[in-house]
């Protein structure tokens, strides 16, 4: 897509890297230009008119000018800074995890308006959620679907038989759940309980408003997270870095408040 010399877009700030004395290179996610890198000049100075509108995870309306290598942000106005999210450490971590998935799974300048909408929704859902883990699992399943990696949860992708209500096998390589007879022959496939399979189908097949009413017990939440994590790692071919921080917060929380969570979904 050719861009005019000056153009407008809304964007969510995914990442930032310091450049020179006061500038930053930002990674932005936009609805119709996909992911793009742009320079924000002077944003690290306290008096910058741009700075506060371009912090990580801010949803902003931007004006950009084409530059020699990178485009330059000339104006920025916050649409939503998701303040309740940045005031909660656990939710901040969850939102950064969502942003990292978008950054890792997308290429520069490939538009995917539905994926943009999903990220924007996820940031709002996290503010309201009663279980941030469930919200992240919903986000992961629909992110994978919008990227063309929708896991097959009804039929065994190898023999095409309808899956039976029993323990089956999840196979990242075959993109779905294998029946027991196929699954036991695949070394990389892991057992998946019937309940976890049902939850995945429910999250995959429903709007967030309905799906978010699910309540998962600790064991189920853990199995779901492990299953989804394995599938995501298979496609990314490496770890999602912010997972380590989420696990760190969980460990700390378990030590500090052994009898109950303080933040939605912080404890499993």
């Amino acid at each position: 897509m050719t861009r005019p010399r000056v153009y407008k877009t809304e964007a969510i700030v995914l990442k930032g890297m310091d450049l020179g004395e006061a500038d930053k290179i930002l990674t932005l996610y936009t609805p119709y230009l996909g992911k793009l890198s742009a320079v924000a000049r002077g944003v690290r100075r306290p008096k910058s008119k741009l700075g506060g509108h371009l912090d990580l995870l801010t949803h902003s309306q931007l004006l950009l000018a084409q530059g020699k290598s990178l485009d330059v942000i000339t104006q920025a106005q916050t649409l939503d800074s998701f303040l309740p999210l940045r005031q909660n450490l656990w939710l901040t971590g969850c939102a950064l995890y969502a942003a990292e998935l978008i950054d890792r799974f997308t290429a520069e300048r490939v538009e995917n308006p539905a994926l943009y909408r999903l990220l924007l929704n996820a940031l709002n859902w996290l503010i309201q959620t009663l279980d941030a883990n469930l919200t992240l699992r919903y986000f992961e399943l629909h992110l994978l679907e919008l990227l063309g990696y929708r896991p097959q949860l009804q039929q065994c992708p190898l023999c095409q038989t309808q899956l039976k209500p029993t323990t089956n096998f999840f196979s990242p390589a075959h993109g779905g759940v294998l029946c027991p007879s196929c699954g036991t022959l695949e070394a990389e496939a892991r057992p998946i309980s019937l309940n976890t399979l049902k939850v995945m189908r429910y999250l995959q097949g429903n709007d967030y408003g309905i799906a978010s009413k699910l309540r998962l017990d600790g064991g189920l939440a853990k199995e779901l997270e492990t299953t989804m994590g394995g599938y995501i790692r298979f496609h990314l071919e490496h770890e999602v870095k912010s997972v380590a921080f989420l696990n760190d917060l969980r460990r700390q929380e378990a030590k500090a408040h052994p009898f109950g969570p303080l933040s939605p979904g912080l404890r499993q």
Partner: protein
Amino acid sequence: MNLNFPPLAEPVARLMEEFHKLPGIGPKSAARLTYFLLRMPESQAKALAEAILAVKEKIILCSICQNLTDADPCSLCHGETRDPSIICVVEEPLDILALERTRGYKGHYHVLHGVISPMDGIGPDDLKIKELLARLQGGTVQEVILATNPNLEGEATAMYLQRLIAPLGIRVTRLARGLPVGGDLEYTDEVTLTRALEGRQEL
């Protein structure tokens, strides 16, 4: 790396490459600095080279506050002139210089050497947090001022430290966040405005 210059004498090309590795230095600035050095008197060039070696050889981290120093403990930790009951926690050594310029703070410091940045794989264990917690044992410290930057990662780091320190019964404060001097309400983002409102003061 190819800097697209006509064939250069090897030492010149090498120096340019070294400059190019520095933050904020592109190929053009690297060339400009290199030619500037070429015209410099030899004594001055030697002084520069020795100064670079000296910071690498003589500068260490203070075993108490983790600031850069050539003597351990550093001059800020050493001696009786500063108040040991307050520690101000900053991201980088340069932040200490900025706070010292105010001449308004007489407590001690602690340098984290970074902020929590989950997407870059930088977690609490990569910062000087264990060293900070060790300083809080023993009952001397009454207050910890969290002076990380007022952006998402700085706030996350402050929240993380607050959760660790508050249970120790030590007062935890955060630098007030508000409108910058010379700033303009019209251009101020809602996060800054919200916090400026929260921190409003009686006139």
